[in-house]
């Protein structure tokens, strides 16, 4: 059906095919239209880049916690309750219930000594959960906070198998009462975020540290030698949980 065969049928001399010229014009017009269509979008992206309200997280900072087990009162659960309130967690202790922080009561086998301390995501520098996540949803931010990007999490629970601290929980039920600053939902894995929504707003404490009645939990910048947490770490003996794994956790414990 092309113009050349028509030309052959119709006349002795082949006509110059008019189709390519108008096709070219059509393509040019389409390109112009297309350009006009996406141009506002391109401009928009420029505006979006320019209008940054906050600064992105920086690796000059490393957020961490120092928890003093000596100050941790038996039976006290203020940190847990504060975390639940802050993050919109439902609470509860069924195997399917989510716990970002829990109070662990310990008894030393050889001596009978008793103590208690809160355990949450240790925000390791070498997180096993980040290594095993197939989609990269479990990631370490520049400032050391280990998070789950729930947009990318497929709910495979491999990170839960990998975590040495049982820090992660899986959301087993549909949720409707999420807090706007803490989006969370069914089918994804989650854990303590070091109150990242607060930190990014400029606040310099986590809900658990704020709520602790004995100030057993100190939040701060491990990379700043002048911060309170760094000073305390220089003064008092502290250790990481499962230090043998060499994960370089951001959460340290003293009095253990």
């Amino acid at each position, binding site marked *: 059906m092309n113009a050349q065969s028509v030309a052959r049928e119709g006349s002795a001399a082949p006509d110059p095919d008019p189709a390519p010229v108008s096709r070219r014009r059509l393509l040019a017009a389409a390109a112009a239209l297309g350009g006009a269509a996406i141009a506002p979008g391109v401009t928009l992206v420029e505006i979006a880049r320019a209008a940054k309200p906050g600064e992105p997280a920086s690796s000059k900072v490393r957020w961490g916690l120092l928890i003093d087990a000596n100050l941790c009162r038996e039976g006290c659960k203020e940190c*847990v309750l504060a975390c639940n309130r802050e993050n919109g967690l439902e609470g509860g*202790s*069924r*195997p*399917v*219930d*989510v*716990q970002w922080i*829990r*109070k*662990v*009561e*310990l*008894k*030393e*086998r*050889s001596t009978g000594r008793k103590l208690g301390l809160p*355990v949450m995501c240790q925000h390791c520098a070498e997180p*096993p959960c*980040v*290594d*095993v*996540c*197939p*989609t*990269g*949803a479990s990631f370490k931010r520049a400032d050391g906070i280990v998070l789950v990007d729930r947009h*990318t*999490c*497929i*709910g*495979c*629970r*491999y990170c*839960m*198998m*990998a*975590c*040495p*601290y*049982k820090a*992660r*929980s*899986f*959301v*087993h*039920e*549909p949720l409707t009462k999420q807090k706007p600053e803490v989006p969370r939902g*069914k*089918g*994804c*894995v989650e854990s303590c975020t070091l109150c990242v929504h607060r930190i990014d707003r400029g606040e310099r404490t986590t809900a658990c540290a704020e709520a602790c009645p004995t100030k057993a939990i100190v939040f701060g910048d491990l990379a700043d030698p002048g911060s309170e947490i760094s000073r305390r770490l220089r003064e008092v003996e502290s250790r990481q*949980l*499962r230090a043998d*794994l060499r994960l370089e956790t951001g959460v340290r414990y003293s009095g*253990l």
Partner: protein
Amino acid sequence: MASEILLPQHGERGFWLRLAMGLGVLAVGLAAAWTMEHEGHVVTGMGNEVVWGAPHVFAIFLIVAASGVLNIASMASVFRQAHYKPWARLSALLCFAMLAGGLMVLMLDLGRPERIVVAATHYNFMSMFAWNVFLYSGMFAATAVYLWMQLERRMNRHLKAVGIAVLVWRFLLTTGTGAIFAFLVARQAYASAVLPPLFIVLSLAWGMAVFVLVQSACGEPTEELAQRTKNLLGVLAALALYFTAVYHLTNLYFARQHEFERFILRDGGIYPLLFWGGYVALGSIAPMWLVWRRRATAVSLRLAAALTLLGAFAWLYVFIIGGQAFPLEIFPGFEASSSFRDGEVAHYAPSLPEVLLGIGGIAAAFVITQVGVQVLDILPSADD
């Protein structure tokens, strides 16, 4: 050499009935998966301690056995054992079918199964799971090409080369399956370098058992083939038992692993029962006795294969679920207790949706095998 191989006795009607049954079971499995996805995993027996439950037992069985069942074709193409050649096509089809069934179960058990596209477009190559996306899809492609080359006469001359490629690929795949667990540094049940080779041997044993049972449904093997298969099943069962013994004995040497081994081998209730009774006695020693005793018959071979598969499920249950039920040791030297069940053995009971999903995976493999056998020239013919 042409063997006296009978064509299967099934006719058209038999096929449609079997297909309908398979599709029915598959539909039930899919309905179970839909319930799990819609209501959330709260309807299952899994929780924050045992995060991988019955579906993973079924899925890993199917995937490991899929790799092993291809060994029949490898023995024919790569190791030039002519007795297996007539059955090589069935072996390739079974590999494809079981891999599909296993992957179906794994993907439907995800917390967000609709995000498979995310898994296919976002990769973290430190993760074994990310590698598995390529290893498994590559296995599908490789097996399909392998099958085509077996079916297409003019391609038969390439069989050895493709057979070697497929052999290497499935070794990588099964090593990867073992590595999923071997890379979990914090769990006392895993984090062992013996796991990848252990999984390779398990794949060979379970694949051989699956092959024996499927072959017996499709026709009588020759006496010579039956003899070789019998011996091989026994050797592979012994080899699997050896690697399992090495795994446990090494653990028993380390003081820090004693509590875990006591749990799995003696005090853990269902787990020692399944390990000693299900895997060691019924799943390893009984099959070895059945195939190597003086009066071994075709029936005893099939029974040995069936028991090996029973042992496979028992082994996987103890490994996957027992390994999670034992509490993480976060505070060595301390007894721990908390609202999050620190220090406690986790309780797990498989729920109906999980088991139905797992069985649905087997049904998917069954359906694919049925259709493949019906549509393609899979079963041994007079030309072989």
